[in-house]
């Protein structure tokens, strides 16, 4: 029985580099030496703007893409290099994902029950209780099986589809759920319902959740731990309350300052130009004599200077 203070997944120095072009190859470092842990029963939010690499990290964890270097340990086993459908299948019995766009997550040609059928078939779940199991999991996400299973994706709303995908992920009794911007395409009024559902279920079942988002307020609401990404670098991480109340990395600070709050208006006398952020961050790295991460308080780490790039 796993103790709750042991991580269920460890990412160590994950790096992903994309190259484009054949003659004059251009390299983009999407993720640079990212290291973090996921714990059972805890929600970890991965916060970043577009291009920060957060979706790439989600895909790396889900093995939809392979890292250029680094390791992923799942239950202390190195799964970085597993290949082949059957080994990946074992992994997918224990980790699943829900993605940003509910409508593009379903093949438009099929009814929505296909996504459940796929799971039953590929993971060889008990076919006898299939209807019951599906029915149960739909009810857990507050959906009515009779009204839903026979429909095509375009006949349902975004909120319903996301709930369906959560139900699908839960059929497998997974240990980890990767939720990539799962509510950003939903209407304001449906968002909270889907989110609360996710958190409730995860806490009940002791799941580890990696919640990828650009919305800082949501991150605070949901998560126990927070990871802040900037241009592929994990610049700050730690307990959510600590990171939010005491941000120490300049990027984190500027990020928080940009979030609109209904209690307090922005101080408009300060000019705030987004392009300056990169400069300020680089200056910070250059001025620091310490290398790598510094533990500024318990369970709160800040990147003081850039680690070496590989390749």
């Amino acid at each position, binding site marked *: 029985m796993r103790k709750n203070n042991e991580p269920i997944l460890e990412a160590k120095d994950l790096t992903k580099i994309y190259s484009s072009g054949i003659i004059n190859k251009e390299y983009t470092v999407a993720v640079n030496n990212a290291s973090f842990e996921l714990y059972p029963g805890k929600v970890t939010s991965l916060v970043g703007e577009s291009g920060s690499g957060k979706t790439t990290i989600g895909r790396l964890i889900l093995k939809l893409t392979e890292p250029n270097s680094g390791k992923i340990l799942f239950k202390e086993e190195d799964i970085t290099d597993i290949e082949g459908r059957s080994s990946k299948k074992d992994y997918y019995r224990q980790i699943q994902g829900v993605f940003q766009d509910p409508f593009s997550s379903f093949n438009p040609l099929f009814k929505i029950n296909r996504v459940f059928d796929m799971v039953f078939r590929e993971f060889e779940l008990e076919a006898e209780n299939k209807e019951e199991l599906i029915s149960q999991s739909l009810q857990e996400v507050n959906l009515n099986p009779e009204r839903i299973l026979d429909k095509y994706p375009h006949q349902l709303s975004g909120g319903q589809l996301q709930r369906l995908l959560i139900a699908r992920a839960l059929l497998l009794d997974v240990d980890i759920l990767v939720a990539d911007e799962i509510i950003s395409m939903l*209407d304001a009024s449906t*968002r909270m319902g889907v989110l609360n559902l996710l*958190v409730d279920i995860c806490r009940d079942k002791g799941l580890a959740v990696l919640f990828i988002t650009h919305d800082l307020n949501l991150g605070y609401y949901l998560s126990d731990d927070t990871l802040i990404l900037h241009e592929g670098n994990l610049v700050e991480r730690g307990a959510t309350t600590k990171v939010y109340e005491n941000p120490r990395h300049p990027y984190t600070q500027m990020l928080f300052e940009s979030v609109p*709050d209904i*209690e307090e*208006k*922005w101080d408009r006398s300060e000019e705030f130009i*987004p*392009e300056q952020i990169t400069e300020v961050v680089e200056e910070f790295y250059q001025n620091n004599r310490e290398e790598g991460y510094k533990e500024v308080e318990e369970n709160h780490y800040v990147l003081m200077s850039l680690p070496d790039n590989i390749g």
Partner: protein
Amino acid sequence: MEDSEAVLEISDLKTYYRVMKGDVKAVDGLNFTIKRREILGVVGESGCGKSTLAYSLISLDKPLQHISGEARLLGQDLMQLSKKEKRKLKLKNISIIPQYALDAFSPTKKIKTFIKDLVKQHGRRADRDFMNKVKERFQIVNLSTSVLNRYAMELSGGMKQRVVMLISSMLNPDLLIADEITSALDVTSQRYVTTLLADLRDEGIIGSAIFISHDLATLYQIADRILVMYAGRLAELGGADEIVHNPRHPYSRALISSLPRVGIQHKDRRLTGIKGTPPDLTDIEEGCRFRFRCQHRTSECDASPEMDQIQQRHYIRCWNYKSLGSDQNA
């Protein structure tokens, strides 16, 4: 602000989409006034009609049609003008930054070409005088003039949005309509673009603005008044502070209390959304449109509420708001 002239006066404006399946009553009886130097924030869920309002003022293209009511810009009723007459007003008196402006950038065109094309579309010429003025304005938006020679793909979303804001305000319009100008941007750019809109008003470059967004917190930062729209109608309209800190309409209250904020964690306090979904606006019947999702519904709500004035320039459409007190938890 009390004695400022009215830049825009909307009286009982109705514009519907006339399509095969019926009339989609997207803007169904709106009333409000915008004074000079005022920024009006318009908030609501998608499908509530806020973008339709924008299009109604700028270009009424089929299947969108004017049904009744007036929209007077500096005295002239926009609904009665011909396309030609409206063109004269474009960019100079009324201007819009449309919702998908960022998509209009062709990745292989230089920014200066984009600017010239855009201006041409509005029936004006981007001659040398114009381009010189553009260069001067670049400073205000913190862009270097070298941007003119760059390609769209070299710029970030925030930078492109600034170019669009620059052009839309070039001729110092009396009213600038900004439709979801921050939604597709990163958080850091959102702050910059939002404050830029307020700066443009402060410097007198734009006379007034309508700032449309689904994000109430962003609107709150710069709006003087906020119009909360629901299903094509006004739910509540009042000063920004009033709406955000003392909302009266059940919908406004529900909206505010469902906003996640730093300080509230799931394990401490549960935030709930609003149950149900917005109604289909096709041939929608009379009655308060929010009643199916409202916790305070009574039998009166089957009749459409009239517009009530709570205090100066603060209006509401609800039968029961008085009995709700000022408790924020809807």
